[in-house]
């Protein structure tokens, strides 16, 4: 067994490196990803090893980056685009929604659009505006795009490779506040779970807590705290938002009868709403309480010194657990 001790950023780096070694058609494109290695250093050293043709420092234009990635994909390449921060994906939104998402469909299924668009997302890093957002619902709402979010180094290592291997365009969300958090041993010989599946991150009996990306850690800490109060939370890492894989969630909710969905994105019309609606259909008679959503408030992202209050934290999760039990 080969293992490596990796942070989330280093695991992504290793996954990208592996994908580039395995497939010469993989090309990375983005702002400052070459010599600098990206503002988060996720692509550190890759330009040095694979050259400027495969790790491309793009001009400062997101629509240009994604639009030319479409052309590269049409020419048989597999572009992996880095968007520097979540809030700067919007200049490319048109290309993503009207072109990337629809190519396969419009071509009558003849032309695939294999492309990965990596977006560091979420808050908690004390940044200025536009650097802490959670735009996943906007992409998950777009047919033709697949949307996944990693939450830990092992998943990051495997999921990025699987996303690159996928013939469909994948929006790949990376919880930026965890990039350089604690390194863990990653088994490089493991057989990974399939990409578009959710996974139980911690078993429990009383409440099912669905999370993804940065909120998985929040949910796990809440589970620790709840255990001290005699309540057992089952935490499910959704991992994939489009398609959603609610099989493990339904299995869990049939046992617990209670469910929360935790995400940093605004609750209104978000991923949590979709999960709640589906569970209402599939698990109606098992539910002891409505599915509760814990998320970012329905204001624009706040100034950094208020973000700790705005973001869903351990207390807000525990509060929702109480509310679920009090129902």
């Amino acid at each position, binding site marked *: 067994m080969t293992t490596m001790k990796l942070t989330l950023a280093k695991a992504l780096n290793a996954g990208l490196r592996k994908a580039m070694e395995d497939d010469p058609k993989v090309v990375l494109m983005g702002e*400052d990803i070459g010599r600098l290695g990206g503002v988060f250093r996720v692509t550190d050293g890759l330009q040095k090893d694979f050259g400027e043709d495969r790790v491309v420092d793009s001009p400062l234009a997101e629509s*240009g980056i994604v639009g030319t990635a479409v052309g590269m994909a049409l020419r048989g390449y597999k572009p992996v685009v880095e968007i520097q921060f979540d809030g700067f994906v919007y*200049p490319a939104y048109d290309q993503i929604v009207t072109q990337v998402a629809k190519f396969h469909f419009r071509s009558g299924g003849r032309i695939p659009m294999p492309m990965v668009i990596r977006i560091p997302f979420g808050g908690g890093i004390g940044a*200025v*505006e536009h650097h802490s957002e959670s735009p996943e619902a906007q992409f998950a709402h777009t047919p033709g795009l697949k949307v996944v979010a990693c939450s830990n180094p092992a998943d990051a290592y495997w999921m990025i490779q699987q996303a690159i291997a996928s013939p469909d365009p994948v929006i790949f969300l990376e919880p930026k506040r965890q990039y350089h958090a604690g390194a863990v041993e990653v088994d490089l010989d493991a057989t990974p779970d399939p990409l578009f599946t959710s996974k139980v991150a911690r078993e429990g009996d009383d409440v099912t807590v669905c999370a993804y990306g940065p909120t998985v850690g929040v949910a796990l800490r809440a589970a620790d705290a709840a255990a001290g109060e005699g309540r057992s939370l089952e935490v499910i890492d959704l991992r994939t938002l489009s398609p959603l894989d609610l099989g493990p969630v339904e299995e869990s909710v049939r046992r617990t009868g209670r469910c929360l969905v935790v995400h940093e994105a605004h609750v209104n019309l978000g991923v949590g709403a979709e999960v709640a609606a589906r569970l209402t259909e599939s698990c109606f008679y098992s539910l002891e309480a409505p599915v509760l959503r814990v998320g970012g*408030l*329905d204001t624009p992202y706040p100034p*950094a*010194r*208020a973000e700790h209050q705005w973001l869903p934290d351990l207390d807000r999760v525990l509060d929702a657990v109480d509310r679920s039990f009090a129902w």
Partner: protein
Amino acid sequence: MPDVDFVQLLTPEGERVEHPDYSFTGDDETVRGLYRDMVLTRRLDVEATALQRHGELGIWAQLLGQEAAQIGAGRALRQQDYVFPTYREHGVAWCRGVDPLRLLGLFRGVDFGGWNPSDHNFNLYTIVIGAQTLHATGYAMGVQRDGVVGTGDPDRDTAVVAHLGDGATSQGDVNEAFVFAASYQAPVVFFCQNNQWAISEPTTRQSVIPLYRRADGFGFPGIRVDGNDVLATYAVMQSALQRARDGGGPTLVEAYTYRMGAHTTTDDPTRYRHSDEVEHWKLRDPIARVEAHLRRNGLADGEFFEQVAREAEELGVHLREGCRQLPEPVVTDLFDRVYTEISPELADQRDEFADYVGSFEEAVR
């Protein structure tokens, strides 16, 4: 370093030189004023950088080295002109009378810009690269409709300035702004500080021709000025602004300068640029050349320089003491700012959130 061709009126050694098309019309008092502005702007930058290092600011976008470009552009404005800055225009903000303390709020993370744009004709900082160039153009289209272009009244005719960086020139928004401005002959000046770097990418990644020549293809004049020469920048901007106010349409001014510091306090430029480049530019310092000029020609005495230094000290104290006292953001207040008329569902969320926060305070009591 390629030899560049630009308008220069004060050499790095502090010699005044002539240019066939541009001249600096200010008197010695004006030069002393520009010097003072630059020194105070640099102090503001140094102080804010230190505040970031002490954890008082989350991040700071440094302007070190770009003082002449910003003060030249800022002091060429008339009261009625309107400015659309990026996130780095601290010197222009200074010229517009914005209390430098107010600039810190965004970087401390307590607000998104603590000044009222209409009090200063100075928009909030825009972080999304290039977006503000379209706003400036649209604002200038409004100015046209108000009939305050080309009336000949110096107190009414109005120009608009869009600030942008070299990296920004690649954005679709910027190119669209150029198209709209040209199409309507809008009274806007695009002031591009080519500081040679967009984070880690050199200007050559964005453009294979000098940036000012981009204007040609859009159908309006482009001019390059020594952005480390405050006199030249002032003169070139005065001329471009006057052209806009007179109804002559847009101009692209490329101020050729250098970002002496990091992109922001979180950046590490040693990863992508050589120190000899920085050394080369140190010799072109925008403040040193004005000081040399003033001293050599006896245009300012020791008392003047001491006075400016004292003011810089006072500014430092103002920033250090004021920064910690900037009001903290309160989450429950944010709900009321989302819309002019809050929706019932958002009001409910606000009240529930207030109750939730209140429950902790009760628990503490």
